């Protein structure tokens, strides 16, 4: 299992955000994306997820399921939480379980200490609780690649620890993680990519 990106150029709204970016990530490795605001961290994650197409360059996942796109083998947690306020915490995860195909809601809730909020309507969640619900999605089904965009946003100390533990299990299981962040995640990263100043 290996993720290879080569000579990537990203254009958004007609402007080149970054160019000639490449990296290589082996099984069980965590890649940290750093760089100032607007340097293209989220954009790079979207490229990997296949939500945007690179203006140039290639992204390949060696040793994955050939017939599946990289996105279909990845979990993606964006800046937005993809939480439905009108559903309860459990219902939100139930839905993602069905869509992502299988998974254990109980375990996912427990993994981010949301078990006690299971029956709670998501409207009433605080910012951090909502973020945890978004993160719980990645604990549902195992997927080879995790794409996390500033995952620790709004999390309290304890939740950050839980997140670290979660990421560690993914790495130990030979999975890959690409995480964009401005603050230390509290877990040592094998690789780091600094996108530098926005062009």
């Amino acid at each position, binding site marked *: 299992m290996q993720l290879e990106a080569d000579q990537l150029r990203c254009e958004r709204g007609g402007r080149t955000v970054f160019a000639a970016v490449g990296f290589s990530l082996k099984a069980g490795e965590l890649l940290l994306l750093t760089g100032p605001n607007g340097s293209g961290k989220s954009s790079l994650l979207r490229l990997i997820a296949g939500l945007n197409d690179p203006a140039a360059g290639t992204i390949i996942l060696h040793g994955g399921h050939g017939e599946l796109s990289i996105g279909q083998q990845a979990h993606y947690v964006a800046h937005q939480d*993809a939480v*439905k306020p009108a559903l309860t915490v459990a219902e939100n995860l139930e839905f993602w379980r*069905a869509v992502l195909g299988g998974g254990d809601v109980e375990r996912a809730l427990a993994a981010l200490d949301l078990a006690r909020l299971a029956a709670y309507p998501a409207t009433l969640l605080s910012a951090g609780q909502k973020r945890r619900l978004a993160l719980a999605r990645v604990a549902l089904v195992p997927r080879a690649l995790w794409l996390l965009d500033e995952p620790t946003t709004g999390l309290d100390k304890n939740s950050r620890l839980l997140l670290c533990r979660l990421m560690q299990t993914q790495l130990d299981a030979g999975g890959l993680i690409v995480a964009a962040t401005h603050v230390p995640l509290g877990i040592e990263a094998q690789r780091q990519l600094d996108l530098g100043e926005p062009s």
Partner: protein
Amino acid sequence: MNAMWALIRRDLTLSLRQGGGVGTALGFFLTVVVLLPLGLGPDQALLQRIAPGALWIALLLSVLLSADRIFQQDFEDGSLEILAMAPLPLELVALAKAMAHWLSTSLPLAVTAPLLGFLINLEPQAVLPLGLAMGLGSVTLSLLAAVGAAVTVGLRRGGLLVSLLVLPLYVPVLIFGLSAAGGGPDLATASLLILLALALASLVLSPLAAAAALRSYLK
């Protein structure tokens, strides 16, 4: 498959909990039906003549009013991106959401509309064909509405734009829907068949169109 059911179920739940429930749709439909005689005058004969058309227009409008947000919420809260990365192809996602809209709004209206017809004295013998025509037509309406919703999902105030885009596409449905209720039995069957054809065609095509539009907005 399982995933599609989940989508449909979720959208139905949401529309129920967020005030977009069947009851509301019916309520709106009723209000439109009330407005018509007020606007057009209480003359019995006149109302009787225009009853089917009035019901159809009311149906079109209430479908449209509820349509513009089929995808918007999922687009704005980031759910759509996750759905786009899910095993389920985006076409089926669009189809599922269109179906959810049909179940929660169009179908109930299509079923009850002819029954409410007596309020604007619809002839009794027109009830059954009208009901059938609306049942078939409403499928097309919801599917086209989904396309319109997808095409405007990025625009926050899409409401009117959707209508502007979709209403013209509704014209065929309206025409054949009326001829189903108006003319004799053979004309009725003919138009019902055409409505069926329209429904099938949009069943195949509109998910493709909607999904394409959504993808381009996600980029």
